[in-house]
């Protein structure tokens, strides 16, 4: 694997040493071809030299990363290494990291050094993974373009005048730019899958309850779920194996053993696999380039033995309206904790307690976050609950029933991840509703709590296109296996943005 690229020479001197998957790096570490300290240092240097081109990191934790890498090398020398020991990754800046700034992309938390680790962070450290730093994101994960970050927009490595998608845009750009082989993300309405699609990556949103939400700054608690972004399905399987698991600290965590996702990849067969193609996903709104790529994937899967079946998800159109009640309502409640009293931003010279609350929040939150808090506040205000929140929860039930019926006929569902490829920075930032509607294919999955992944499906006008595979509850293993089989037969996921490896 590594030796094919680097030859027998010192691994650290190879100019493309960063261009390896997590699986390849794990193998190189196990074979002693490279140490975690060498690998970590080279990626930290690369972030220092090239990171500014993409604005994908908010915080780089150099000292801590090198200390963790050293510990990983010691563990390996002592025979205590796991499969991922010493592999460097990045965390979305929504996951609390003990003693390290956890900004959530907001001025509100610019000065916040979390006093504990998120369970995901702890699980991954326990697996020996090394944290390089914290990645940029839309403020409080509210956005589809990474333009709402207090730290400025992230640039797409495939075209730096375009957005990387969002809200996990920094994680996606960092992996696409080969600044990290993998990164964590969170997905409330598509925030892992859409940036994965726009940056040519594989990204997985697990089943609601599979990955702990403890220490993950809450946006919409009934929808939020953490997951991996990486180059391949195999890498996502490896990362998910380290992230997932029951957590008594998260009351919605599901007490159920974690599958051996990586070990099961080769065992998933496409022979006779029934792939549902929702007719509602292939109507208007999808660009021709995206349509061509999705149809190409369906054709390839058929060649590999799968059986495409037309299905109906009749309530698809209602998913965006219902989401823009549920998500803002839960956000308005969750974000009430930011009060300028206990942590985070506090306004100067408050006149009284109300002034303290209102100006700390008014000055600490950006425009999109305030907009959503107000939508949610309105929807939950006296007299409106039945018309909005209750109605939206009923529509969630209808959407879930659509999926339940579909999974009686098919094993997985295939469709586009996003209606278009990455769009120019600034193009949609003035029109929130247009931005919201671009999440039409990803949102229903969160409303129904299902797992789904996006994987590279080719290119349109030089920009990556992603397709989405949706599975039944806890069927992550099958999704990853199907994507892995597809990736064994294609090379879309191996393409590198121009200039990244210069």
């Amino acid at each position: 694997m590594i030796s094919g690229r680097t030859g027998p020479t010192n691994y650290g001197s190879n100019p493309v040493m960063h261009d390896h998957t997590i699986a390849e790096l794990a193998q190189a570490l196990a074979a002693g071809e490279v140490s975690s300290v060498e690998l970590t240092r080279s990626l930290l240097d690369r972030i220092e030299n090239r990171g500014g081109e993409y604005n994908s990191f908010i915080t780089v934790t150099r000292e801590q990363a090198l200390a963790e890498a050293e510990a990983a090398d010691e563990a390996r020398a002592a025979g205590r290494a796991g499969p991922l020991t010493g592999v460097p990754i990045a965390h979305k800046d929504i996951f609390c990291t003990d003693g390290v700034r956890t900004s959530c992309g907001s001025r509100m938390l610019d000065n916040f050094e979390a006093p504990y680790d998120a369970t995901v962070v702890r699980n991954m450290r326990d697996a020996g993974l090394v944290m390089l730093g914290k990645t940029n994101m839309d403020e409080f994960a509210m956005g589809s373009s990474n333009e709402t970050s207090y730290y400025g927009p992230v640039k797409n490595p495939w075209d730096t005048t375009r957005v990387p998608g969002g809200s996990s845009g920094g994680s996606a750009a960092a992996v696409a730019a080969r600044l990290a082989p993998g990164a964590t993300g969170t997905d409330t309405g598509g925030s892992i899958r859409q940036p994965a699609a726009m940056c040519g990556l594989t990204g997985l949103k697990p089943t609601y309850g599979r990955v702990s939400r403890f220490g993950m700054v809450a946006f919409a608690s009934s929808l939020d779920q953490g997951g991996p972004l990486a180059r391949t399905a195999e890498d996502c399987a490896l990362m998910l194996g380290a992230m997932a698991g029951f957590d008594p600290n998260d009351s919605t965590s599901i007490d159920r053993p974690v599958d051996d996702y990586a070990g099961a990849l080769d065992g998933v067969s496409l022979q006779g696999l029934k792939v549902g193609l929702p007719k509602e996903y292939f109507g208007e709104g999808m660009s021709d380039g995206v349509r061509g790529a999705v149809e190409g994937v369906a054709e390839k899967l058929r060649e590999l033995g799968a059986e495409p079946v037309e299905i109906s998800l009749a309530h698809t159109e209602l998913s965006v309206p219902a989401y823009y009640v549920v998500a803002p309502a839960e956000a308005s409640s969750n974000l009430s904790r930011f009060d300028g009293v206990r942590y985070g931003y506090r306004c100067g010279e408050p006149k009284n307690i109300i002034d303290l609350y209102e100006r700390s929040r008014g000055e600490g939150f950006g425009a999109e976050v305030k907009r959503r808090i107000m939508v949610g506040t309105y929807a939950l205000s006296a007299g409106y609950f039945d018309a909005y929140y209750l109605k939206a929860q009923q529509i969630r039930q209808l959407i879930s029933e659509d999926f339940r019926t579909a999974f009686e006929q098919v094993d997985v569902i295939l469709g586009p991840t996003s209606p278009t490829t990455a769009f120019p920075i600034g193009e949609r930032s003035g029109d929130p509703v247009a931005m919201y509607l671009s999440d039409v294919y990803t949102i229903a999955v969160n409303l129904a709590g299902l797992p789904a992944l996006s994987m590279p499906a080719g290119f349109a006008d030089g920009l990556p296109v992603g397709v989405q595979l949706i599975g039944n509850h806890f069927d992550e293993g099958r999704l990853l296996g199907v994507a892995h089989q597809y990736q064994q037969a294609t090379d879309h996921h191996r393409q590198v943005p121009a200039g990244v490896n210069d």
Partner: protein
Amino acid sequence: MSLSPDEVRRIAHLARLSVSDDEVAANANELSSILDLVDRMNAADTRGVTPMAHPQNATQRLRPDVVTEPDRRERYQRLAPAVERGLYLVPRVVE
């Protein structure tokens, strides 16, 4: 659905958000167009549909009623903008 500037100010106050006059004007338009989007829900007949409470119809777990939190007051209060003698400071509330 169209919100007036006064309604925007009322919602902002309920949400404890200060808003400038410019923000009120912008939000009156934007919130109205978001509520128009949301009103598309009315196209669905939801009579008799049980509102979804949990994606897997799971119920909240119970745990033994025992103390699990250690005392971390000092660590937490180091994050606060203003504390004194273990208390969080705010502008005077009671005259």
